[in-house]
């Protein structure tokens, strides 16, 4: 059994409520942080732990916190990004539904470390029932003196507010989230200035993912030096993976970042293998935005090493032969899945969710969707594949926010690794409407067009 830090008590009945949570060792980290460690002590522990942002980018949290500007007389804010809208990702939902107090405690410790007296949880609109759970937990915590004025007699005040979004994917981008929180249209801001300098209401702000903030609790409990013993290398600690697709046991798993991808998919402890004894075709290891990997590159890197469930190992080989751990939305596809259709689904999603602020993303995502639609429905041309490649290349890196990149990467990876499947769709327009291409047998990586 892999060691757990976040979900170790998730199975206890009633852990959602304060009393059970407290009697199972809850809020001891908060007590420790507020009474003995102090803000700098917490920051030191988080820095020592090597915790990396769990929202997708994997930016070191301690470093992010130390960037926050601290001008006199200006309030600072902590914003919890619970706008978990990435297709394939549902880990934060599990955390907030089952152990909301873990998040509240994490928010309390983090706000204390940052010196923030107001904290916002921005939750996606589709999680309609979770704000009630959170608000109940906040009320419980406030009743017991963990929130409000003069917490534990330390003179530190904190209020946590829950704000629901209206269901836009783009509001998961930190500056768009801040705009939305301010009551404006959720358009990403142009950086710099970064939120650490000018964020919510032009004040220094830190935006962190739910899982990142929850992970602060075990870090304080066991100490940063102990936390670093979990995982491998720079991927410290545990990570929640939301596994879905053609696997026997879909769900949220907490993994220690020292197991191989093969073990994660095929062991009974985690995904339990591919459904109906089919063969593994491809996998998107970190939510819809990250590049898709074919089976041969998923289990072994291009160098022939075993691919591990870590930030570094999954990114090994760059985008040519690697992918990203991303937000941990692990989508497994068996031999019956059509890559073209899958890519079309993602392209449609990004087209729908583009905010329309900057031109490459606004126009390019729709174009990619239409071209992919043609290919999928047997109306494609061979030149369309190169066209798609060119469109994604002109979107990537040229947009205000990472949504443009997120829209471009899946298309790029699908063409890079599964080009023959696209070509089969174009050459066999009738057959492709009746059956799928099946499992890929080709050598990888396929040479990519010049200028890639």
């Amino acid at each position, binding site marked *: 059994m892999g060691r757990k830090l976040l979900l170790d008590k998730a199975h206890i009945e009633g852990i959602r409520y304060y009393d059970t949570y407290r009697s199972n060792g809850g809020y001891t980290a908060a007590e420790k942080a507020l009474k003995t460690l102090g803000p700098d002590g917490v920051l030191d522990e988080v820095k020592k732990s090597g915790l990396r942002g769990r929202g997708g980018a994997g930016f070191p949290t301690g470093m992010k916190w130390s960037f926050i500007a601290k001008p006199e007389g200006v309030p600072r804010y902590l914003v919890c990004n619970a706008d978990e809208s990435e297709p394939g990702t549902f880990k934060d939902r599990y955390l907030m539904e089952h152990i909301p107090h873990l998040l509240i405690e994490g928010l309390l410790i983090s706000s204390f470390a940052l010196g923030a007296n107001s904290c916002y949880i921005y939750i996606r609109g589709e999680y309609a029932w979770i704000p009630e759970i959170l608000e109940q937990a906040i009320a419980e915590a406030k009743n017991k003196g963990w929130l409000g004025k003069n917490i534990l007699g330390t003179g530190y005040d904190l209020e946590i507010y829950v704000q629901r979004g209206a269901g836009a994917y783009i509001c998961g981008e930190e500056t768009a989230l801040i705009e939305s929180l301010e009551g404006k249209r959720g358009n990403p801001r142009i950086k710099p200035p970064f939120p650490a300098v000018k964020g919510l209401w032009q004040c220094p702000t830190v935006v962190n993912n739910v899982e990142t903030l929850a992970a602060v609790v075990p870090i304080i409990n066991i100490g940063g030096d102990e936390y670093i013993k979990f995982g491998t290398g720079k991927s410290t600690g545990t990570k929640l993976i939301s596994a879905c697709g053609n696997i026997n046991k879909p769900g949220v798993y907490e993994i220690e970042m020292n197991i191989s991808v093969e073990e994660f998919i095929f062991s009974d402890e985690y995904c339990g293998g591919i459904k109906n004894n089919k063969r593994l075709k491809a996998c998107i290891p970190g939510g819809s935005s990250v590049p898709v990997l074919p089976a041969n590159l998923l289990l072994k890197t291009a160098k022939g090493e075993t691919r591990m469930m870590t930030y570094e190992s999954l990114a090994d080989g760059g985008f040519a032969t690697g992918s990203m751990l991303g937000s941990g939305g692990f989508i497994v596809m068996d031999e019956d899945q059509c890559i073209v259709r899958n890519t079309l689904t993602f392209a449609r999603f990004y087209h729908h969710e583009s905010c329309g*602020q900057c031109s*490459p993303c606004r*126009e390019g995502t729709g*174009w990619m969707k239409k071209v992919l639609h043609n290919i999928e429905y047997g109306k494609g041309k061979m030149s369309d594949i190169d066209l798609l490649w060119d469109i994604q290349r002109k979107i990537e890196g040229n947009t205000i926010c990472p949504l443009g990149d997120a829209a471009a990467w899946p298309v790029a990876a699908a063409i890079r690794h599964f080009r023959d499947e696209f070509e089969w769709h174009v050459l066999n327009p009738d057959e492709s409407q009746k059956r799928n291409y099946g499992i890929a047998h080709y050598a990888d990586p396929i040479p990519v067009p010049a200028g890639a």
Partner: protein
Amino acid sequence: MAEDKKMFKVKIDNISVEVEPGTTILNAARLIGGEVVPPAMCYYSKLEGSGGKCRTCLVKVTKGSEADPRPMPKLVASCRTTVMDGMEVANITSPEVLDARKGVVEFLLLNHPLDCPICDQAGECHLQDLSYEHGADATRYEFKRRTFDKVDLGDKIKLHMTRCILCYRCVFTADQLTEKREHGVLGRGDAAEIGTYIKQSLDNDFIGNVIDVCPVGALTDNTFRFKNRVWFLKPVDAHRNCSNPKCCGKVVLWMRGDEVFRVTARKDKYGEVENFICDECRFEKKEKSDWTIEGPRKIDRHSVISQGHYVNTVKPKDALVEVLDGRQPKLLFDIHSESQVNRPEIDLSKIDGPAHSDDFIIKKS
């Protein structure tokens, strides 16, 4: 105080310039002028917060600064990126930038109707200039273009959303110039549109300026629509004592003979308004007697508007005649000897309806 202010040295396309800290790369390039100035569709120096959206001004920062010489990993929007001391920027010297810009122009034109022949903005349209300079000769887009219905925003302003490139300039204008903003961007992605949500008119003293700031023909002057092409009009600087305290009264009259066809604010060479004018000046004062005329407006020579307005210009030397020892070039053939249609003895006015080749055959027999 101003003397000891430290100036930043910036190199744009290997041309050095010293600028004040806080200047954007685009403005530094404008100080140099000429070819190195990146095009800008959404940035407007008079409007706070504008820019960064169209991505045509992308440049490559090859050296971050003197202190941190690392290049920036992505292309940056030059209109919103401030310079650092010792920064080196590549604009037209970077093939990557030109490639990206070409891509952006293609994206901007993707859903643009390209109805320039019937568009009032033609001739002074930034998108026209941009696609002429940076665009490809043909689009690769094979799908139906996005269209919207035309909307009247009050009786003076026509919104033709199909042409819009969502630069947000008009939103900033209404936000910063008028007392209340009544329009904004609705919807998202490529369904995003400028609108008032509940259809109502935009009536503010300064709302007419949205027509001037619009880089394309999405917002046009209803009092001028389809009246004339801009290159047939003669721009004349004029002023009047406007009763509105915020209005400077300095305008450009677009005239043909003694008739004033339209009134706009004065624009600099980047197409930006120098001083915003009020709606009374713009829409109500269309008599020559309302204005004190200062003289013809200088329009950049390359602009199509300058067609026919220059006096005393020297015609470029026609080398062909010189090469032919003073003889005029001989036509390859005389059209009248080749075609019956163009025979001068056929009087087209005698034919009922449009001429048809049969008409000529009958006459001949």
